């Protein structure tokens, strides 16, 4: 499904601000796999995700989706296959446009826009029932501007938008991190139910180890621009936070020759 092969990324090469963010990373995702990604600040998690989404080109390596090489595709072209939710709730929606307008835009992500009227009668009911399934009281607010919604409501809406046009791959970058704990739990629950229902191949970054263990069928941990730990299925199921910390210390220790590292 997703094939990342030996990608590297250095920001500002040759300058004092040079920052090596990814070092020879390879990752293969099978269809329907739900992978949680953890790792401390600056580990390269977002860079990995942005490389897949095409926010910037990678220095080395290739990325393909369903055997189609997308390494040189611009961001908007990859969006045909990829749905995304960002950490910042402001990022995924257009605040001064109505809920319905945002959903309409998302519903045609995998085709070119044309000169037909954007707001379509036949979509309204569909949107309403989708919004109702969020249980956030948004179903009667199709004509509200998105800017009036709370952060949690906006993230849930972004999630709906990201999955509306049947993406091959769903990328979630700490999409609950900016929310209060209760709302975060709510949005996470919506996330897991959408992913399960639609069998979406998903990559979810989280800073919460418990969430990382509870969600998905595979877990990877990044450190210093590399994937240090990769566990799945049965092995992942019996993993605890304590196991994870131990594994991390061992892996990072052998990587760097010291064990003074902590997860943030």
């Amino acid at each position, binding site marked *: 499904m997703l094939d990342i092969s030996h990608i590297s990324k250095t920001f500002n090469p040759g300058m004092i601000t040079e920052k090596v963010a990814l070092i020879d990373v390879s990752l293969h995702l099978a269809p329907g796999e739900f992978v949680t990604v953890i790792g401390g600040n600056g580990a390269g998690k977002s860079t990995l995700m942005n490389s897949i989404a095409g926010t910037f080109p990678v220095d080395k390596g290739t990325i393909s989706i369903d055997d189609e090489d997308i390494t040189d595709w611009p961001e908007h072209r990859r969006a045909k296959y990829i749905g995304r939710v960002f950490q910042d709730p402001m990022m995924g929606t257009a605040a001064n446009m109505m809920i319905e307008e945002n959903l309409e*835009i998302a519903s045609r992500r995998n085709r070119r826009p044309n*000169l037909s009227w954007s707001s379509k009668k036949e979509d309204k009911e569909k949107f309403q029932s989708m919004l109702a399934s969020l249980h956030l009281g948004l179903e009667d607010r199709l004509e509200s501007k998105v800017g009036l919604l709370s952060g949690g409501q906006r993230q849930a809406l972004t999630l709906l938008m990201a999955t509306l046009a049947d993406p091959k791959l769903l990328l979630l970058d700490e999409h609950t991190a900016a929310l209060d704990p209760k709302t975060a739990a709510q949005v996470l629950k919506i996330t897991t139910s959408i992913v399960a229902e639609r069998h979406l191949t998903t990559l979810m970054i989280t800073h919460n180890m418990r969430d990382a263990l509870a969600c998905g069928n595979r877990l990877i941990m990044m450190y210093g621009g590399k994937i240090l730990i990769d566990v799945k299925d049965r092995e992942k199921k019996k993993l605890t936070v304590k196991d994870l910390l131990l594994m991390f210390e061992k892996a990072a220790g052998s990587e760097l020759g010291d064990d003074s590292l902590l997860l943030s």
Partner: protein
Amino acid sequence: MLELAIPTLSQGLLWSILAIGVYITFRVLDIADLTVEGSFPLGAATAAKLLTEGYDPITSVFVACLAGMAAGIVTGILTTKLKIPALLAGILTMIALYSVNLRIMGKANLSLLRMDTIFTLAGFISDDPQNVALFVGIVSTAVLALLCYWFFGTEIGSAIRATGANPRMIRANGINTDNTIILGLLISNGLVSISGALIGQANGFADVGMGVGTIVIGLASVIIGEVLFGTRTFWRCLLSVVLGSIVYRVVIAIVLALGMPPNDLKLFTAILVALALSMPLIQAKFKAMRKAGE
């Protein structure tokens, strides 16, 4: 005073087409586009040149619109493909257009005296040229505003609006923002050129210097309209901009009647816009002060 009502109204309408153009870049795309100062005289120059060459007024305005669109594309390519900041890209096109406009006209000023213009064409409406001008103003503004309303309600138009609101979001939804930005600048400058073509014909001449300050006039109209008439829906925004342009002309007519020298007009408009643009900050400061006082 009252005898000025109709001319003021028709001036406001003809200028409102420019204001809609400025609204599209400034509010919809969130770009301050200075191309306007070149594409406005470009429209006037193109139309005037074609009229003196014997072309009919409708064709002249149409070609003027195309010329303005081309200017918009140039700014669009400079800012998207060549990554020049939008403000600077607009300035570059504006400066380049100064030479282009001189070339089109062959001189700095082209008179349309005793020539058939769009206003002679509409002469069947009334024997009073004031009424004819008002008619042309109403029809052209109505047609273009409706066209804008339709276009920005389509899938492509909605992608342009989202580009200004949140470029990352719209890219994540499969839209090439380079294209939407170029398209928005094209539409905006096409409208500005039409406005220039019509106002040139209304005034009876095209002048290479007639673009100076047009961006500020456009901004004044947009802001006055928004403050007085609201922005709830896109349709309401368009209407507000048109009404804002008319109110701006009324204000100008009043201050002139009160004895302000016409040479101070641009200074007056600039101060008006500076005040209006700083309003949010002033309001916030004022609120904070009142809170501190309590």
